[in-house]
């Protein structure tokens, strides 16, 4: 019960931020944006090592970057890795989250611990452990092993949005309603639960995508040059040609921004969906 009478926020008190707030936020913005903006400018600068501002502007490095023989292959590999990870993640996590929210609520603490675990394992340690255990073909240093590693590493990113969405729809009641109308477990999942948690699944998938697309450590340490992804190409070029590396960095930053905007968009849609469901009840 909310007090409907709470006085309106004292609007006449604070209309503009205080000076120290402006300074703090401005410095924060400066720190956060300068490296990125500089990289964008560097990627189109002809020469920028003797002056404050670039001496000229060109698109040459983008043309050269996109013509690099590995560009398309690494991009493709990154997309394959992301897609495979999302797929495995969905298959493993969505049904599990569903069971834990309905029939097996007692397992929720265990699941929460298993989901925080990857944060406690440095990626290099995970890579070392996997490489040591699975050291015989066909698994040894294979893309399959990599996918397993990346799924573990990105699991929390899928788990949280899906779990929150599941929480918001009251999966147990919906399941019982569905069952009382004659639906079996499979029908309940495909026709009721999944459509209702779709925003959560989408944000989870996008989060996993942006994490995996930028993943460097596991890829380079587990498979290395055998399955080169985009971040590996980028690191390679930071040592070969700075301008082209800048162009690659811009590609990487831009994808990250786009995915974030998509997540935000899906997120607000999802929230609306959730409040609508609650209001409909």
């Amino acid at each position, binding site marked *: 019960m909310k007090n409907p009478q709470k006085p309106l926020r004292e609007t006449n008190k*604070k*209309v503009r*931020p205080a000076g*120290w*707030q402006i300074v*703090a*936020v401005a410095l*924060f*913005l400066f720190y*956060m944006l*300068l*490296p*990125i903006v*500089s*990289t964008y400018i*560097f990627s189109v600068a002809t020469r*920028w*090592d*003797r*002056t*404050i501002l670039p001496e000229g502007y060109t698109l040459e490095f983008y043309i050269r970057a996109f013509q690099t023989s590995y560009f398309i292959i690494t991009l493709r590999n990154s997309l394959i890795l992301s897609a495979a990870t999302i797929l495995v993640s969905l298959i*493993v996590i969505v*049904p*599990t989250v569903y069971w834990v929210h309905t*029939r*097996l609520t007692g*397992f929720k603490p265990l699941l929460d611990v*298993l989901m925080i*675990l*990857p944060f*406690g*394992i*440095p990626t*290099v*340690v*995970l*890579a*070392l*452990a*996997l490489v*040591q255990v*699975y050291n015989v073909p066909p698994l040894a240093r294979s893309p399959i092993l990599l996918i*397993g590693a990346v*799924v*573990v590493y990105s699991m929390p990113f899928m788990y949280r949005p899906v779990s929150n969405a599941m929480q918001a729809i009251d999966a147990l009641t919906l399941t019982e309603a569905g069952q009382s109308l004659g639906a079996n477990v499979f029908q309940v999942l495909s026709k009721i639960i999944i459509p209702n948690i779709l925003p959560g699944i989408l944000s989870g998938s996008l989060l996993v995508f*942006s*994490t995996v697309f*930028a993943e*460097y*450590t596991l890829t380079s340490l587990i498979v*290395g040059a055998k399955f080169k992804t985009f*971040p590996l190409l*980028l*690191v390679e070029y*930071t040592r070969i040609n*700075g301008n082209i590396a800048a162009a690659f*960095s811009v590609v990487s*930053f831009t994808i*990250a921004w786009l995915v*974030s905007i998509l997540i935000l968009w899906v997120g607000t849609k999802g929230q609306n969906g959730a409040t609508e469901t609650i209001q409909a009840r």
Partner: protein
Amino acid sequence: MPLSKRKTGYTSDWVRLVPFLLFCLAFEVVPILFLIRGSIIDRNTSQLTIQHYLNLNHPLYLNSFLNSIKISGLTAIVGVIFGTFIGYAIYRWPSRRIQEILMTLSDVTTNFAGAPLAFAFVVILGMNGVITQFFLEYFQYELYPTFSIYSFSGLTLAYIYFQLPLMVLLILPAFAGIKQEWRESAQSLGANAFQFWRHIGVPVLMPSLIAGVTLLFANAFGAYATAYTLVEAKLSLVTLQIGYMIAGEVRKDPAIGMAMAVVSLIIMGLSIGIYQAATIRARRWSKS
């Protein structure tokens, strides 16, 4: 399906978690256990031994632990102090729209770790970077070689880049959890602003601040790609050392790598454990 069979279905419900548990076992639990086992078993004699841990007592490895702890601790503390300050500025910002934009920015930038970030810092603070040029032009001050982006100081700046927004994201809900009524109750009971922060505000924030220090510490301790791109061999860090051992660049006893990995697991586990406990406490308080 006969009714009796359906009933037994309930008792074995947990079977439905088997695929997930198997997956975790295969790619998370078993490899870690294997690692621990490898670190305490002598390869030749198959006997229990602590020799691998004793072998860590070597300047190279000690240094890497020291450096890792130093950079993680430093960037965690700097991140918590400035992140809290910036977080408070954002929290008190009167426009909801601006707050949302700044939160989204923090969300994106905290994930900008790795090679692109490292390269971006080379662009601004490298030998011929923008800021390096700026100092030279306007202050006639040569940043290099006192400062170098390829050193501890440079890496610190790069780490703070993703630590700061992480703290902002962590502390904002904590500020939002300080209810206006607490402030007003304290006031009506005779407390001034300073007394409110001393007795209620800071203690209520404390779990979140502790959670912040530990999470940021773990975040920096486990980082690899940024360090690999920037400092590579110029600075010894735990993650870099373990990386070399996997890549086989250093032909050393793999058991030393395992011992190193286990020690860093313990450090990380402690941090994440404290973080988790602090988060639970913070959440419990914000509920009441």
